[in-house]
């Protein structure tokens, strides 16, 4: 019997995503919401909604009793848990079972079995799944360590059992290093943790995070829906995912898929689940863990297989058998997902909260040769609060090939308008342009290696820069013609808008000639390059969709003196378009350096001062904690950048500060 009403025990984009499928299947939906989510999109979308408490999740979304009350009050006959919150909580699954309400997820036993790292690894080994080779027993001396290392095969990682944060960890590539590494790890472990137990496991080089989507019904069918490549992560937070992986060959894919199914079958798994593997540069793969829920990045799998995973989860939970077989599950084209986070990439990805004064995602569409999908939980005019995960949307593109899917993603990111909060759109664009990503050669260290000092924007290279310059020249001409058509002109003595301009952007100036006709404009550079610019852009529009030199270009267009603020491909440019004479005079203007703010401690994000660690007159050392700002549940400790004396403190504990508000001043 198909369910009549599903309660979604979640919020944000995943709640909205589940509601969409349920509605398509003719099933009524119930949303739950906290104080902070009264106006949230998932509440607006659901047929019914139930308030379940204060904003913090531990007083609302993850309180089993409150969710159970909502289930009873609305008479829902099934619950979809989404991801996070209660999705992998076996007590919640038990509680539902006890009341005869279906849990749209795996059986309690499977959740429990996979919920423990050691148990799951043992189960995986037993099911014939490849696991990271290692020795968990006690190791007596260095010689024993060498023997074990040889057995595992170099390189190996020697780790303190009690370790963490890289302490007491050594990588050994040969016997000598294994001998030395064992001794130094042991010493360090003893002094750091007071526990000198050491274990050794295979060190996975050039690691990639690749996971297998599995789907099983209660009739003994367990299938794999191929893999997702999730190597692009920042501090274990996935940023960009894709399916299939550019790295796997069919044999590896099949081996991983079959092992994943074997594990699922071994624990009596039903519903959708994900088996995560770490894969080395030689395509050796090792089991990491199994996630017994719908994964955040599931849309890329849906895009390449055409299967709606939420629908399948609902059908399986209702007792239906899967209506397809492994042979039906082919890989069609390529899909990429970019996670849009309310995090400011220019400020070390600190969370950003506030009102979304503008939120215009690209139009979703599904054509034979391209698709754009945006799973979102927010809307323009909505509020990003500090209480929950900063992910606000998942933008996916699909195309027949990987290159085409990347190009679709570039355009989609350029089209995505988000204002009012800091967000990582520029960073996502930068990833899409990065040669390592384009070549599909990324590992889990990609972001840390390519942006070791953080992200400070993108500098466009030619020809991309010239394409922007050409577009701006043509757009500026249109804007100037509009200006010259103001009322009150002296008749017959109107201003004639010329054809010669100088475009200045990113410290470069290009003289150009703009010759316009009905369909567009030819922008000629002084070295002879001529780019045709065509667009329906009108002055004042915040988005320009153009064809420049026969290729599409999308620009976010903002206001700037004598030109535009342009955002495209991760770059944020001040573009000036002037007549040659204006440009010559502008070149005489002094270059002004931004004011020196090093004497101030500025609030890096909107947040609450929860602690001040220093007082006026205190001498502080470099790296000393000065105060703590709380934003999005996160406590951020602000430290002194250099030695100095606190001259003045202008904020107090309890103050709510805006970005760049002065907290204290140094002498």
């Amino acid at each position: 019997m198909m369910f009549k009403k599903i309660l979604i025990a979640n919020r944000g984009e995943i709640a909205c995503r589940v509601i969409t499928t349920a509605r398509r299947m003719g099933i009524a939906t119930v949303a739950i919401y906290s104080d902070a989510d009264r106006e949230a999109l998932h509440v607006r979308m659901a047929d019914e909604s139930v308030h379940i408490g204060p904003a913090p999740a531990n007083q609302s979304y993850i309180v089993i009793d409150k969710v159970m009350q909502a289930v009873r009050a609305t008479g829902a006959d099934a619950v979809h848990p989404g991801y996070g919150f209660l999705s992998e909580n076996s007590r919640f699954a038990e509680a539902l079972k006890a009341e005869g309400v279906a849990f749209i997820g795996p059986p309690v036993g499977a959740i429990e079995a996979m919920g423990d790292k050691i148990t799951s690894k043992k189960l995986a080994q037993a099911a014939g799944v490849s696991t990271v080779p290692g020795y968990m027993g006690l190791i007596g001396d260095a010689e024993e360590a060498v023997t074990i290392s040889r057995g595992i095969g170099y390189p190996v990682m020697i780790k303190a059992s009690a370790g963490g944060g890289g302490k007491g960890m050594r990588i050994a590539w040969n016997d000598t290093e294994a001998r030395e590494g064992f001794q130094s790890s042991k010493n360090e472990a003893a002094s750091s943790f007071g526990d000198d137990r050491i274990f050794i496991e295979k060190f996975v080089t050039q690691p990639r995070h690749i996971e297998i989507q599995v789907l099983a019904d209660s009739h003994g069918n367990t299938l794999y829906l191929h893999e997702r490549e999730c190597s692009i992560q920042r501090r274990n937070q996935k940023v960009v995912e894709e399916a299939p992986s550019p790295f796997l060959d069919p044999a590896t894919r099949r081996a991983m898929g079959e092992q994943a199914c074997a594990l699922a079958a071994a624990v009596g798994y039903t519903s959708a689940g994900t088996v995560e593997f770490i894969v080395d540069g030689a395509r050796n793969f090792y089991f990491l863990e199994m996630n017994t829920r719908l994964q955040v990045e599931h849309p890329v799998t849906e895009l390449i297989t055409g299967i709606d995973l939420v629908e399948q989860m609902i059908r399986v939970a209702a007792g239906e058998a899967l209506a397809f077989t492994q042979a039906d599950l082919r890989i069609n084209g390529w899909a990429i997902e970019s996670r849009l986070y309310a995090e400011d990439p220019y400020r070390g990805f600190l969370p950003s909260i506030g009102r979304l004064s503008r939120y215009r995602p690209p139009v979703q569409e599904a054509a034979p040769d391209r698709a754009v999908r945006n799973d979102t939980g927010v809307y323009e005019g909505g509020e990003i609060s500090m209480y929950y995960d900063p992910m606000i949307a998942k933008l996916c593109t699909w195309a027949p090939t990987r290159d085409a899917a990347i190009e679709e993603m570039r355009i989609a990111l350029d089209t995505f308008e988000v204002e009012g909060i800091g967000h990582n759109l520029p960073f996502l664009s930068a990833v899409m342009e990065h040669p390592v990503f384009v070549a599909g050669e990324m590992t889990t260290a990609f972001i840390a290696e390519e942006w070791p000092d953080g992200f400070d924007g993108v500098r466009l290279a030619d020809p991309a820069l010239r394409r922007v310059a050409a577009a701006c020249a043509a757009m500026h001409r249109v804007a100037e013609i509009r200006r010259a058509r103001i009322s009150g002109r002296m008749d017959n003595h109107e201003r004639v808008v010329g054809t010669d301009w100088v475009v200045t952007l990113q410290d470069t100036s290009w003289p150009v000639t703009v010759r316009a006709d009905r369909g567009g404009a030819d922008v000629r550079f002084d070295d002879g390059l001529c780019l045709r610019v065509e667009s329906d852009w009108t002055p004042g529009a915040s988005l320009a969709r153009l064809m420049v030199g026969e290729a599409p270009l999308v620009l976010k267009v903002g206001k700037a003196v004598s030109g535009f603020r342009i955002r495209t491909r991760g770059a944020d440019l001040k573009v000036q378009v002037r007549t040659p004479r204006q440009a010559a005079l502008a070149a005489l203007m002094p270059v002004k350096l931004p004011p020196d703010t090093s004497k101030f401690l500025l609030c890096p994000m909107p947040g609450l001062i929860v602690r001040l660690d220093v007082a006026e007159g205190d001498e502080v050392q470099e790296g000393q904690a000065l105060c703590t700002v709380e934003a999005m549940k996160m406590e951020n400790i602000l430290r002194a950048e250099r030695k100095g004396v606190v001259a003045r403190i202008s904020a107090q504990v309890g103050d709510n500060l805006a970005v760049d508000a002065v907290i204290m001043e140094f002498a």
Partner: protein
Amino acid sequence: MNGILQELEARRGAARAGGGAARVAAQHAKGKLTARERVELLLDEGSFEEFDMFVAHRCTDFGMGDSRPAGDGVVTGWGTVNGRMVYVFSQDFTVFGGSLSETHAQKICKIMDMAMQNGAPVVGINDSGGARIQEGVASLAGYAEVFQRNVLASGVVPQISLIMGPCAGGAVYSPAMTDFIFMVKDSSYMFVTGPDVVKTVTNEVVSAEDLGGASTHTRKSSVADGAFENDVEALAEARRLIDFLPSSNREKPPVRPFFDDITRIEPSLDTLIPANANTPYDMRELIAKIADEGDFFEIQSEFARNILTGFIRLEGSTVGVVANQPLVLAGVLDIDSSRKAARFVRFCDAFEIPILTLVDVPGFMPGTAQEHGGVIKHGAKLLFAYGEATVPKVTVITRKAYGGAYDVMSSKHLRGDFNYAWPTAEIAVMGSKGAVEILYRGEAGDAEKVAARTRDYEARFANPFVAAERGFIDEVIMPRSTRARVCRAFASLRGKRLSNPWKKHDNIPL
């Protein structure tokens, strides 16, 4: 014949060279453009026609007779900004330090007289060391001639001052009487007495920048209406401002083609007002979402930030905006914000620019600083300005409209044409907390009773309907449709005719 033509070219060349290559280079080294370069950037390319290029001073004292450069330190004439006529004078610092002589002043007066006669704005570019000391009282007389014309031109043609170098002593009073003053950061300053005199008289040690730089005058003194990074940006923005202004009080504000939907619906405005009445929000978002293409030319953005003033366009036509800013001091009215808004309202009224007022005001700022500073008279300026204004006036109350501040902010009673309120509006004598404390003083200790009284009060007054029942609010509108409603309201007022009783002039509480 050829020789005569050549002589003209030679004389022109000499005049255009100003103070010579060395002084021009020195001017450039200071990050400043020359007088003629500034005029070029202000006006449409090739549109400048210079007057009095060959005027020279007639002073012979102190050896002045030996140096009589053509033009005498100021470039004057006219040209167009986007095809509309503008008169301009630009002081030339490379000639006698731009100092003002009798003839220099006469050149300025000539174009001001023409501007008033022909109905076009005057833009003055100030870069002058001050009076030409060698000329003595003749120079002072020159200033006064200019001042008198500033006064007569006020309200007849827009007058814009660009301070692009020194402007000190008596010289400051000419820009002071114009409609808008823009300064260039780091290279301009204005003061009545300079740092040296200040030190002698008051023993204060202060730099020229701190005493009268762009930052001081845009943030502290409110003498200036805006500051820009350099000459080029200041001149580009002056062009942008001129596009908003009518050429004279005989003309309607200009209209230019626009590419925005006049019925544009903004669903996000429905959530602009936070659930908590004490939470601020940014009124600029509302202005941007009402305006054509989100374009807002803000006046005095750095001063009295609790009120916003500036120009937008609706259906391509200029509208002045006055809006309380809840983000700063809860949008309260005080001395500074009243003065700032009053002057802006009077400018709009003088030049037939319709006024849109956006209201979220908790009242007037209490305190000795305010009372002793004369908030009564200063607040009255804004009340007076709105009350005398005969231009189309449309008002939207978004949230609070409390007490006397409700009356002041272009209320129905001050001849408001369209007075809209959002459903979130609260029009009352004061907020619920204060009202309950006064009405039920005896129950102050009983938290439960106070809460109940507060709820009652809120139910009765924390809405726009009490005012709407009396007709003080013409219509309660959906926030999302504000742009469409406001556009249509102003469209309906295009034929508005309203005049005040005849008087020599009024007596606004200055």
